[in-house]
């Protein structure tokens, strides 16, 4: 694999046949981007001395920086490409993943859960589980998160390399090694601080690079009304521009999903689970300088998340209006046409002239790197504090110095990057690994949410309840997944409809395993001995003193801004009903 590495890939990509070619101005913009991200890491190295600096960015981030980094860590290039393609395939329904599939969960995290994460002073989500339920639940969560994070990072890395090859003709090895080693350098140098600062920079670049498409696209189609008219003209049989109207029955929409799947599966379970327990995003909030900033950060993030469809979904819809002949991947391969998976680069090539193309490609690279840095910095923290430290202390009977753990964190970063690179090459030869790792990831997320939520809000939840609830949730998720794999007709039972498709299965599987996890946690907790209030101080509602915000003016209170975001969220859903 490595022996095929091309030492002069830069020479290769100019001659390749691809969707677009870059001018020297575009290339200069990309080179400057790489210089800046490494420069930031180098500059911040001098401020990264202690474990708190390296793993928690010194816990001194403002609400804005923590909030933007919170959203940027999730806004990968594949997300941009993938959801633009989904918008072409499913229409505006894809927006649910940005609105009901994110906003309520982010606000819930800010108002209900952040106080416990923040006041407990945990370094990580598995760390919180460890404090609340003991080592068993914490270790399940840490190990699964650690492995899954770097595997997913490798999968994303490989997918990005493929995108760059198709789009620009770049050598796959070149894309994988240059981007991942750059991330490694700036995270090793500056830790979470460097990852967060770069994420904020990358977030700005993603917006400024991707905004070109919706703006020129809307000018070309004559605004929103003109775009909708063109879509209806191109696809008279389908409804691509209404969010809720077609969700009354699974057979009325291309996703094959009923509104209950979107509201309860996506909104109440999957998104709650991801946004409130995935340490990749929560770590950014824990780096905030005080509790108020930590609560405001997800609210600020929610405001920006709500706008992301403008640069992701709208290009897909504009594609339906101006590029009506894109087809599925298999058909594109047979006919030699373009697939809707290429809609974003095709739109970029359609509108972006010199420099703007480079900015757009930089946006995609920035998206990938912010996602990867998020994965790698979270991986380093969890492995150092939640896996390595307990083992080290047990074996050596020595707590270890702070500088020792910083050194281990840096090594974990290097190892994490190389495992990711290895996964990327593995996926190249065994494509099915991608599906299995994604499935594996989905097994852990929903059950974790139920367990953590009960742990924060119900002081009667016990160590055994948490462990067995988590175990039962994960087990039931694996069982349902295996059942559908073995007997595809089981899908209609799990997803409650004969017309259900894969997407619907994910929603309902998350819902059922989350509920099973909660039920088992409750039952086992009621049968076992709870911890005392003193042991739960700082971890659970009722045993934790949460500082009052009563002395603050209304517009400085997180709850006020959460209300504002909620009102906008409801209004948007009504407008695009």
């Amino acid at each position, binding site marked *: 694999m490595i022996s095929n590495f091309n030492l002069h890939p830069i020479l290769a990509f100019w001659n390749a046949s691809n969707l677009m070619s870059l001018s020297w*101005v575009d290339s200069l913009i990309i080179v*400057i981007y790489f210089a800046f991200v490494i420069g*930031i890491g180098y500059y911040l190295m001098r401020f990264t001395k202690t474990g708190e600096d390296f793993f928690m960015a010194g816990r001194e981030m*403002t609400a804005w920086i923590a909030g933007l980094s919170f959203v940027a860590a999730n806004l990968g290039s594949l997300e941009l490409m993938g959801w633009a393609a989904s918008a072409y395939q499913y229409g505006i329904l894809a927006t649910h993943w940005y609105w009901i599939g994110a906003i309520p969960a982010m606000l819930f995290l800010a108002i209900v859960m952040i106080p416990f994460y923040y006041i407990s002073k945990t370094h990580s989500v598995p760390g919180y589980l460890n404090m609340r339920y003991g080592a068993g639940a914490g270790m399940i969560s840490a190990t699964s998160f650690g492995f899954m994070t770097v595997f997913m990072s490798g999968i994303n890395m490989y997918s990005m390399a493929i995108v760059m090859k198709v789009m620009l003709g770049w050598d796959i090895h070149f894309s994988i090694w240059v981007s991942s080693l750059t991330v490694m350098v700036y995270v090793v140098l500056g830790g979470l601080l460097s990852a967060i600062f770069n994420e904020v920079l990358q977030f700005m670049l993603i917006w400024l690079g991707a905004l070109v498409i919706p703006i*020129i696209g809307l*000018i070309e189609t004559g605004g929103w009304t003109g775009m909708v008219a063109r879509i209806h003209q191109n696809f008279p049989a389908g409804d691509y521009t209404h969010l809720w109207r077609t969700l009354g029955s699974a057979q009325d929409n291309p996703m094959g999903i009923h509104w209950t799947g979107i509201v309860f599966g996506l909104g109440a379970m999957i998104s709650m689970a991801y946004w409130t327990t995935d340490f990749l995003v929560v770590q950014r909030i824990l780096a905030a300088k005080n509790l108020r900033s930590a609560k405001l950060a997800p609210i600020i993030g929610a405001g920006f998340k709500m706008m992301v469809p403008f640069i992701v979904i709208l290009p897909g819809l504009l594609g339906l209006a101006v590029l009506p002949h894109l087809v599925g991947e298999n058909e594109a391969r047979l006919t030699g046409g373009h697939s809707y998976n290429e809609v974003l680069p095709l739109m970029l090539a359609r509108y972006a*002239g010199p420099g703007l193309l480079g900015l757009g490609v930089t946006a995609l690279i920035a998206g990938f790197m912010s996602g990867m840095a998020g994965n790698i910095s979270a991986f380093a923290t969890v492995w150092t504090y939640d896996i390595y430290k307990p083992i080290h202390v047990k074996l050596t009977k020595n707590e270890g110095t702070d500088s020792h753990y910083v050194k281990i964190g840096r090594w974990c970063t290097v190892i994490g990057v190389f495992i990711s690179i290895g996964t990327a090459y593995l996926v190249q030869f065994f494509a099915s690994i991608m599906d299995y790792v994604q499935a594996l990831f989905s097994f852990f997320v929903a059950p974790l949410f139920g367990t953590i939520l009960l742990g924060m809000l119900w002081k009667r939840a016990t160590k055994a309840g948490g462990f067995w609830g988590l175990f039962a949730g994960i087990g039931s998720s694996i069982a349902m997944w295996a059942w559908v794999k073995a007997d595809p007709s089981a899908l209609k039972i799990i997803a409650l409809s004969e017309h259900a498709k894969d997407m619907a299965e994910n929603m309902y599987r998350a819902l059922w395993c989350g509920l099973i996890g909660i039920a088992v946690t409750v039952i086992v907790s009621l049968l076992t001995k709870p911890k005392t209030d003193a042991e739960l101080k700082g971890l659970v509602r009722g045993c934790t003193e949460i500082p009052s915000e009563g002395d603050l003016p209304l517009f400085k209170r997180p709850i006020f801004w959460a209300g504002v975001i909620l009102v906008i969220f409801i209004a948007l859903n009504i407008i695009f009903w």
Partner: protein
Amino acid sequence: MIGRHKISIWFIIGLQLLIYGIIILISNIYDYISPFAQNTIVLSELHFGIWWGAILVIIGLIYFFSFRPWKKA
């Protein structure tokens, strides 16, 4: 300033946007006046690159000067 760091991230963002804006602005102005330029993109007559370059320069300048490290507290 942000915490102990002398250089704010907003200053760095301003600097980068300023550099990008200048590059995009100059290359698109050249493209506009050059007789050899090939306008293959849709709506090239809008010269969007010039507008976008100018916007980046303005945003970059605002951030660059608002968060400059040598600014007195």
